[in-house]
């Protein structure tokens, strides 16, 4: 399967502040990749580089084999882009904006757009600026669906949306992507949404990539164990197998890629007395916080 997006050795700084170094991202055709990270981890920076709005200090990103700094109009026509906050031309109404974009895309199909618009309680001449965030999200999504791009880049699509609109957005998007073999690169800070949408996950922390794999594999391999230590002066955070540890007094949440047997054996071999040892079932949000830490 071909890579639609390929970022090789991407390094970027804001002034002297390192955002990331030698970042490599590959997104396969037909897959949905979710880029997760805390605020300031570099999600929007990556989106901006992918769209050619930011020149990385070094390295390169390719989309359909073209450097994103010099995308041809043909390749840009294959990419649907959702800006953080569902930004659109707010001075237009839903008819005007559809008319405007239809002139740029040869495969323009306004049916999915008007299907979505019919669900909104907006008047035909209502300006986008007077719509709610949820309504604007549907306008932005409808325009992308009408464009019928091969690759969708979505920057924090869940921002400002209530749960109903988020669910509508995700269900519509996933069904569309899977039925039409579309590729999606998306970020969101609402991790529970991502679990419903994505195939592959890329988790970034400040300056580094913590995980990049299929989300099922990540959820299977990454584990949480809770236990209570007999003594509170034991520090497990430096151990190689520990991805992250959260400790409140003697109560420990330990996150690792190792098995339950491995952890228990390690604790026994090192004479660490514990009580109430149990493996905790996690959802993607728990796993994300477990991997990146609460702070």
């Amino acid at each position, binding site marked *: 399967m071909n890579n639609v997006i390929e970022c090789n050795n991407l390094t970027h700084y*804001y002034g002297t502040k390192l955002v990331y170094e030698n970042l490599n991202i590959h997104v396969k055709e037909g897959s949905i990749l979710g880029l997760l990270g805390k605020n300031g981890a570099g999600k929007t920076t990556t989106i*901006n580089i992918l*769209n*050619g*709005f*930011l*020149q990385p200090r070094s390295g390169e990103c390719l989309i359909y084999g073209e450097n994103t700094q010099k995308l041809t*109009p*043909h390749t*840009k*026509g294959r*990419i649907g*882009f959702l*800006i953080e*906050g569902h*930004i*659109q*031309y*707010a*001075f*237009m109404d839903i008819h*005007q904006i559809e*008319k*405007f*974009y*239809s*002139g*740029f*895309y040869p495969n323009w199909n306004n049916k999915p757009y008007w299907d979505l618009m019919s669900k909104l309680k907006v008047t035909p001449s209502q300006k986008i600026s007077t719509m709610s965030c949820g309504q604007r999200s549907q306008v932005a999504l409808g325009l992308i669906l009408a464009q019928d791009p091969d690759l969708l880049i979505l920057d924090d699509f869940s921002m400002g949306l209530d749960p109903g609109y988020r669910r509508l957005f995700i269900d519509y998007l996933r069904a569309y992507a899977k039925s039409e073999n579309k590729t999606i690169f998306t970020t969101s800070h609402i991790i529970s949404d991502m679990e419903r949408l994505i195939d592959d996950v890329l988790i970034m922390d400040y300056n580094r990539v913590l995980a990049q794999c299929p989300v099922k594999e990540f959820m299977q391999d990454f584990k949480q164990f809770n236990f209570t230590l007999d003594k509170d002066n034991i520090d497990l955070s430096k151990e190689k197998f520990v991805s992250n540890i959260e400790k409140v007094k003697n109560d420990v949440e330990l996150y690792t890629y190792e098995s339950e047997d491995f952890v228990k054996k390690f604790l026994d071999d090192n004479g660490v007395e514990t009580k109430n040892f149990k493996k905790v079932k996690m959802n993607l949000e728990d796993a994300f916080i477990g991997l990146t830490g609460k702070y």
Partner: protein
Amino acid sequence: MLKSMIYKEWLKIRWFLIGAAVAGLLVIAYMYMNTQRSITFGGASSVWYNIMFLNRMFYKILKYIPLLIGLGIGVAQYFPETVNKRIKLTFHLPILENKALLMMLGFGTASLLATYLLHFVVFWLLSSSYFGYEITNAALITITPWFLAGLAAYFFVALIVLEPIWMYRIFYSFAAIAFVPLYLNSGMAGAYAPINIQLVLLTLLISVSMLFSAYRFRKGEM
């Protein structure tokens, strides 16, 4: 694509453009009503004497109108592109970025020129109906740099508004404040006759300066 770009730009500036065109015509109408009043109550010879020997410009009220129209159209056209960095939407369109920008600039310039031409022609016709060739000709030479000032202001607004860094915006604003008065200096009718062509060339030179701001935006300057 051109049609779609023109449509977008038209939606942004249409009310201001129509309002400015009408306002300009009203100012010109007011100017000639005043002239008519002076002729009626003071006599034609007095009006003629004031213009020829006292260098009174009966059209002085028009001086800053093109400038204000240029500033207004620039703001109406480019400011909505920078709110929430909406210019990203334009850069993402399947068209070369500079081509998209030049279409925007071309439409704005054409709209401005059409408005100015309307005002210029109406002014010319009314002036010709009241005054002889020499007075009308000197008036047209005098008001030409005022219209060029409006065009220059429009180009400077595009440069300043699209610039991503505030420090640069301030610097460009100072440059504009120093530059635009060059078009509006003299109080003598016809004084700009020797340099009107040079001013046109100068205006053309700054016309595409906004491409530089847009390039800096695309490279992620902040």
